[in-house]
């Protein structure tokens, strides 16, 4: 298969897949939930607390 054939095949495949994703019945799966965002916030706060403790201890 030549490079050009390969590129054409690639473009056709991308177009086919984008059309499937754009169709109304495509399932995007479970989105990032509010519970997930809470966990993100918790991890962020724990990290910030650790850094703050280190800053205080380094004095």
């Amino acid at each position, binding site marked *: 298969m030549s490079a050009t054939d390969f*590129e054409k095949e690639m473009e056709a495949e*991308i177009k086919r897949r984008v059309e499937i994703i754009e169709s109304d019945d495509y399932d995007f799966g479970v989105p990032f939930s509010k519970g*997930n965002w809470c966990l*993100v916030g918790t991890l962020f706060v724990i*990290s*910030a607390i*650790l850094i703050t403790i280190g800053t205080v*201890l*380094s*004095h």
Partner: protein
Amino acid sequence: MSSVSNKAAEQEAIFGVAPLLHEERTYSFWDFFFVVSGFGIAVWCYSQGVYIASLNHFSTMICSILGGNMLFMCLMCLVMVPIVRYGIDSWVYFRAVFGYTGVKIVCIAVVIVNFPWYAIGADIFASALISLGSSFGIDLTAVAWRPILGVLCIVLGTIVAIAGPTALKWANRVLVPTLLAVAVVIVFAAFSSLSGSDLTNFEPDLTAFESARQAYGFSLEGNIAFSMSWISCIGAMPRLCKRESHAYFGAALSYGTMVPIMCLIGGILSVAMFCRFGVLSDDPVEMYAALVHPALAILGLFFIAFSSIAVQGVGSYSFAIVLKSIFPKVGFKPLAFVLAAYVIALILWGGVAAHLGPFMSIGGIIYAPIIGLLIVDFFIVRKQRFSMRSIYRLDGNESYKYHGGFNLLSFIAFAIGVVVMIRIYNPITGSVNSGLFYFIGASAWSCVAAGLAYYIGSRLPSIQNYLLKDRSELTRAK
């Protein structure tokens, strides 16, 4: 055989650009967690740990490594959300943020600042072989043999990469257990050499710093920049995850906890070395050979040497694929050779390990603004929606062409991030120019400044039209 493997790599690179449909996803949280851990846990974690140990007492070392690595990992891994939702490679999605041509420049810059880590891996390989030679009575003079063996590591790693995905799969299957075995032996060796009071009484030599707080600032900067450097490795893997949360938490907990724990082990090993021999060694191999029983040390050094080749193979393959997704017309092999030549040049220069701190901060100059831009662009400016047709330039849709392929606002915001970084801390000269550095280093402020500048710019009506040309062709998401 090699042409078949090369073809497989070419196909993976090119078809890796196409979006992956939801029913094709195979990774659960644990699958992704282990794959990412296998990639992240490498011999350079010890080098990072040793560097941080040289700047901290034991208690602040723990805070700096665990807090510093997780803080921005929480934010950076949000980039996983669009990648999983739409099933696309990260660098394909980045076209929306930087423009079709701009993303190529950003990709090259990221590879340039990230790939020096592989020079450190090669250096550890050389060090392991020199120690192994010494164990068998073969004197390999470090000055002469270190660069030669380092180059050998790169050559062998590149051969593994060119051999293709199957060789890589086997390299990874051996690599992860090998590194874990080395880590277990190292932990045992370190803790059998130390008492609790040895750790808590450890006093680092901070004479080069104005204060302990300044040294802590440097260690925080090192850890935050280290964590940000993983942005270059995101690639196409997250899109294999079945859920957005699987990708996010798989990566955040791997890069944010498993990798820092390995760094911490490196730090503890360094302290153990200091307590037993009075020397704070910066060479993980030297520490390993000194602290572990000689018979076990030989086996361990062999493992370290092998894992360094495997790490090089995985890295060379992954980054060649990244470049291939940006430059699809260039062959996989030439890209792997260019990467190998770049690391070999760094090995022959020999200064990467000696300048680890500035080197990480120079990486931070590039990564930090990019992370700020990516998060603000997707979650705030585009409100989690973009156009797949424009991402792939299908049917004449080119909303992300901007100015000649460059999103000028993102590059202006990027420049602002760089200026803020240098105004706070100049990694070239090593000078701290602002008290802000003592709170959280400089990369963090750079990330925030770039994101803020991008957000403010996006609020201007004329720029909104420039940025959001895709609104009429958005891909439905939920």
